[in-house]
């Protein structure tokens, strides 16, 4: 994958908002990849959690938007508890999801869940899923 980085992007509104919403210092990450190694969902992601951090701090918003990684994350916090730098990646993933959802772009439609599933699913699945995937 080839990407163009620039000082303008590093100071973009996207980077600023990710920092604000996550409360995280994106520069803490030294790209060791322990987050990706511990992520139980990494095999279903097109970009690894480590790559998402790098793209986010470089302000490469479009590359992240093309990827489904933040939507595959289940906020299990395996990355968070194992990061040797104390970086809370779950909060960064949430910030990126919210930046999309707050533009009124939902990841899924509640009506796509079948009536049968709606009856069977535990309430915590519906409440948490709809909070993570719809704005």
């Amino acid at each position, binding site marked *: 994958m080839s990407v163009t980085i620039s000082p303008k992007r590093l100071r973009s509104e996207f980077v600023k908002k990710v920092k*604000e*919403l*996550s*409360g995280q210092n994106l520069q803490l990450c030294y790209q060791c990849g322990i987050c990706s190694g511990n992520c*139980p*969902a990494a*095999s*279903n992601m097109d970009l690894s959690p480590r790559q998402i951090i790098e793209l986010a701090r470089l302000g490469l918003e479009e590359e992240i938007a093309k990827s489904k990684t933040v*939507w*595959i994350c*289940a*906020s*299990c*916090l*395996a990355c*968070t*508890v194992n990061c040797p730098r104390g970086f*809370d990646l*779950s*909060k960064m993933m*949430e*910030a990126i999801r*919210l930046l999309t959802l707050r533009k009124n772009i939902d*990841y*899924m439609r509640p009506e796509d*869940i079948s009536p049968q*599933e709606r009856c*069977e*699913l*535990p*309430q*915590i*699945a*519906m*409440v*948490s*899923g*709809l*909070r*993570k*995937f719809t704005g």
Partner: protein
Amino acid sequence: MKTKAKNLEDPAIASMEVLGVKLEEIPRWNCCGAVYSLSEDDLIHQVAPVRNLIRAKEQGRDKLATLCAFCFNTLKRANLLMRENAEKRNTINSFMDEEIDYGGEVKVVHLLEVLRDEIGWEALAQKVKLPLWELKVAPYYGCTLLRPREIAIDNVENPTILREFLGALGATPVDFPESTRCCGSYQIISNPDNISEYASDILNSALSHGAEALVLTCPLCDYNLGQGQKELMKKHNEFKEMPLFYFTQLLALALGLDSQACRFELNYGNPELLLREKGLLS
């Protein structure tokens, strides 16, 4: 809990009574929101868990025990926020105009912690009427009781609380490396195919380490691992079904409570078959 996980709640209430602990439901409780809000600017979603904590404080209680692992995580994290972040505490308190001010005074615990810290494994073992000898059970923790580190009920890397619990009941705990691995959680509503993959990894690992059943604490883990098994059985003829138990069901069984209290009929698969094989159920 009241509709989809009665087999978690009913045996808990019955068992705690036997152990001399009367659980008191908080009045006017509301849904905690299921997931803790991870965004710095999203305080509105902290209101729901904090309201529950206020209800407990109003009752003059200093401790709130939860059964659901999701509620535990959300309530304990929100409690910590109210205790440690003065600015956010003030904003939330002034927003909830009609409520009393709250500053994290109530302690949030999971029922497993009550068993470990207040009753104790030895005292629990003494109350066991039907030791679960020969039952090889793998403890499955999932995520929300152990992560993040600041709210964990046990060692994050190497938890032993369920192993000790099973030991007190006389069962044989079976350690396996996937015991703290995520089941996929709410991804069940968006990416169900991934869930059966995770379930396969978790269940096959438990099976290969010699487990006959899995014990768990969370209604969503229970659902995902149950649904995952259904998919696996459709795809692979050789897949062996593994019974899933809530920890409260094994507790009730070991304390000698009847099947009305244990509610095995609500479980995925057929756990009663295994229990009959082991002579634990007539």
